């Protein structure tokens, strides 16, 4: 009986530590590096060029719970006067020919460098979107981008692009 109880103690400690230390907090990251965005913006409801994608996995059992996911894309945009950069985060895609385009159904944003500016500009950016989800999900998140629009077609160069998915506890 003593031995059984001692064994129980030895079993319970690592089990409890593992359970309590359940990795709700997990980060996936990917260095995309340098990208040229030359797909022209063609409207708020269209699909944009995929810059990169990242897969997160909440199906491993240890994280099968409600979670808050924070997606971030950061980098530096090299923009000429009049250039516009549209960035999007989404989990839906559309294949046109051999190219995969992504939807920015989670969030999107625009950075603009004024036409009246006289010089090329290096614009550091960090763009995040949030998603509350339940556990047991494995999903691909797409980071999309477009340039110009409304008569402008100037490509925008991105450098030092890093994409990140942070998994946290469900927000209170």
């Amino acid at each position, binding site marked *: 009986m003593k031995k059984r*109880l001692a064994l129980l*103690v030895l079993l319970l400690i690592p089990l409890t*530590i593992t359970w309590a230390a359940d990795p709700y907090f997990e980060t996936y990251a990917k260095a995309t590096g340098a990208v040229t965005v030359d797909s022209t913006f063609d409207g708020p409801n269209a699909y944009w060029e995929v810059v990169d994608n990242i897969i997160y996995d909440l199906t491993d059992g240890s994280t099968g719970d409600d979670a*808050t996911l*924070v997606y971030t894309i950061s980098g530096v945009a090299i923009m000429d006067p009049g250039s516009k950069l549209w960035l999007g985060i989404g989990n839906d895609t559309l294949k046109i020919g051999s190219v995969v385009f992504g939807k920015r159904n989670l969030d999107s*944003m625009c*950075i603009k460098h004024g036409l009246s500016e006289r010089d090329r500009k290096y614009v550091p950016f960090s*763009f995040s979107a949030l998603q509350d989800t339940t556990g047991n999900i494995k999903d691909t998140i797409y980071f999309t981008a477009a340039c110009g629009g409304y008569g402008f077609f100037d490509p925008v160069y991105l450098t030092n692009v890093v994409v990140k998915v942070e998994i946290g506890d469900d927000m209170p």
Partner: protein
Amino acid sequence: MKKRLALLVLLLVPLAIWAADPAFDTYAKATGAVTIDSVFDGTYWEVVDNIIYTTTDAACVVFTIKGVALMDPGDKLWLGIGNDSLPLVSGAFATRAIDSMLIKHSLTERDKAYIPFEFTAILDTTAATDTIFFSAACGGHGDADPVELTNVFVTVEIGDDMP
């Protein structure tokens, strides 16, 4: 002996849970688009958003507010992070007791600018539940132009206490 061992089990389980206490936690909130029209006056600023965090142990807490500011020539944007607030006649106002910063789009520029920003402040704290206020003001010193913010996103990252 059995009772002792059983007691040991009962003691060790919560101890193990405590030892495995998840010191790393992230709270995040998408605030979206906001217009800052409260003019800087040096004291309490308009609250953009707030977020509540809980730590169960000594921790280093990193607060971040980021987004894009749409600024006309001459505009000023003041951003603050604090944990003290004051309800005034309309709306909540907060001090930026932890840290503050200023972004200025020069009056000599000729065009509206889209300025992505990321502003972070750090607080060393003990076990606590607290509300953090992200506050902002525009203009000041004679200027009263509102500033529009888009894609505002606030996060609180809780890490182990800094060595």
